[in-house]
């Protein structure tokens, strides 16, 4: 473990560099937009930026958690839309909506458990396992619910509060994102389980050889990631009163990956944390807000985001070069 500690320490410095690059780009964009765009630098717009990235950021916290353990979870958007749509669907049978939401969360957790078992026990590479499971989850939901868009029952007080309530002037959606991020940060940095996630991500074979319970760790990771995805879905339900399951077909899952990689969590695992996710989220938030104000078309927005993702991957490859150890233990 002493050796791994040294390597972890060395990577801390590198991680800071990538983070700093992203922070620097964010600051430059922020200054340029503030100087050139009317009403960009207003309290309302800053809150709008945060509110608009709360769903993306929450999803990215879950994805970041998985990527730290050298996995990837492409089921997140499917779990989000199907879990929440399931809650709405069963609430139409006369079940209390809050109870229905609990049932939706249980379903999400069950999907996470299944994904975790497929990855950890059946040892299917995470990218293929989650790709296939995402498709199955969405497909099953699509057959059951018939409609793409499902609306929550009106007059659910707590849901209205999630959508339009504030705490100390901060919208609830941002508060929930902040709470999920803070909890995850604490979990990763301050608990033994969190450290085990880093150890598993850094070198799964070494972790297993030294007797760490890597399989239960991986399974727990996917369960938590699914629950975080469900939480993001509840934020969305509060914000727009309904859930559009077609989001599964959108580029959202790639935006989530963009945030994670951009923030500096290397796909080779074992490094980075929630701070990277927040940095990445803020950059994407500023960029999207600026592009919306500038009236960029949807296609141009996606193009710009893709170029930035490619750039981030290139920077990742330079800052975290593949060494003998990483090439032997393999990537996701």
């Amino acid at each position, binding site marked *: 473990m002493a050796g791994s500690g040294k390597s972890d320490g060395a990577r801390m410095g590198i991680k800071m560099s990538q983070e700093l690059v992203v922070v620097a780009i964010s600051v430059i964009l922020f200054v340029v937009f503030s100087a050139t765009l009317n009403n960009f630098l207003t309290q*309302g717009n800053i809150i709008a930026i945060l*509110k608009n990235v709360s769903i993306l950021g929450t999803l990215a916290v879950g994805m970041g958690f998985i990527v730290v353990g050298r996995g990837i979870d492409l089921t997140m958007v499917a779990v989000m839309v199907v879990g929440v749509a399931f809650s709405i669907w069963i609430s139409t049978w006369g079940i209390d909506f809050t109870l229905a939401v609990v049932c939706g969360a249980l379903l999400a957790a069950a999907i996470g458990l299944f994904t975790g078992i497929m990855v950890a026990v059946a040892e299917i590479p995470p990218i293929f396992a989650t790709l296939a499971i995402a498709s199955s989850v969405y497909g099953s939901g699509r057959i059951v619910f018939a409609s*793409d*868009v499902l609306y929550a029952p009106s007059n659910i007080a707590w849901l209205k509060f999630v959508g339009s309530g504030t705490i100390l002037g901060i919208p609830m959606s941002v508060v929930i994102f902040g709470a999920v991020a803070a909890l995850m940060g604490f979990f990763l940095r301050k608990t033994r389980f969190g450290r085990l996630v880093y150890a598993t991500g850094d070198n799964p074979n070494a972790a297993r050889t030294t007797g760490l319970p890597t399989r239960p760790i991986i399974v727990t990771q996917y369960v938590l990631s699914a629950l975080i995805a469900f939480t993001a879905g509840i934020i969305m339900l509060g914000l727009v*009163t309904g859930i559009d399951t077609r989001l599964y077909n959108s580029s959202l899952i790639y935006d989530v990956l963009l945030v994670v990689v951009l923030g500096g969590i290397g796909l080779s695992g074992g490094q980075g944390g929630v701070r990277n996710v927040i940095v990445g989220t803020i950059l994407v938030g500023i960029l999207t807000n600026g592009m919306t104000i500038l009236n960029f*078309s949807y296609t141009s927005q996606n193009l710009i985001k893709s170029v930035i993702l490619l750039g981030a991957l290139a920077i990742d490859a330079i800052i975290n070069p593949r060494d003998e150890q990483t090439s032997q233990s393999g990537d996701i």
Partner: protein
Amino acid sequence: MKLFKNCLFAGLTALALLSVANVTTAQETDQVGRAPYLESLKGKKVIFIPISQGMDLNQSWVVVWQRHAARYGFSLDVRDPNGDTNAGIRAMQGAIAEKPDLIIVQNPDVQTYARLLKQAQAAGIKVLQVNMQSATQTDSYVGNDWIEMGRLEMGELAKHCTGPNAVSHKVVWLAGVQTGAANIYMRTGIDEVLKANPELQLVSDQPADYMSEKARQITETVLQQHPDLCGIMGIWDNAEVGAGAAVAAAGKQDQVTIVTNGAGSATGCESIKNGLLDVIFNFNSPIQAEIAAQQISELLQHPDRQAGSEKTIFFGPITRVDKTNATGRNCWKLDELK
């Protein structure tokens, strides 16, 4: 007595003869053209390729067409690509290979199926396009007059935002998929109104891609830039609820008028009642489906007519729905259509 008997006999005989005559008449009097009509539809094969069956308009179309198919004995297969254009292309290729009597298609955009539609007609298959047109014109189109829809929606905003009490002349156009026929044609109608009302300012023109969350995000950002925004127009009620949510969160429901269009399902009416939307130009998809059903019959009745030799267009009715009339047939539920 004998005379009475004879009279009775004669009367009964006359009655019997009349009855026989009546029966004979009933057997011979079929509604003109009914038998060949039934014959021409029976056993025919129709394939429908939608954009996605998860949309309210698609569900209502299919309910109506399935009823029509069951009554007249033709088959209707739905090949749902579920919003995936590549799957749609494969579905089209598969349908052409099967050589049905008719393909009904809802185009995701003007180009994707353009060549395939030509191929289908070259292979002798008739093609009916619904609501979303392709660059290729086929045997028939049943759906919206989208240029008129653009005129109606922006016209509604022009009424609200150019008057003496208007908070500003600022309006927003939340598009759907920019390459879709509905967007392209609506834009023509919008531009006509903007030209006629030069004081109107189109401050944002962004595609929400039919997604409510995207519509919410755009609206939230635009409201920060233009706190005195007057109106928003969109293209699908299920997407524009996101814009409504952003306006409601900003506490500007009295200031910003939100106009959109929709299939006329009950969820749209609920959104009006909840104050998320102000006006929906309702194209009543069940009525649209009935028009298309008659067009299906028409196309199946003329197997000898060469595919693509005649081209027809039917625009369905559009009803302006607001708080005053968001009831009854302006707000259908799928179960009630079945």
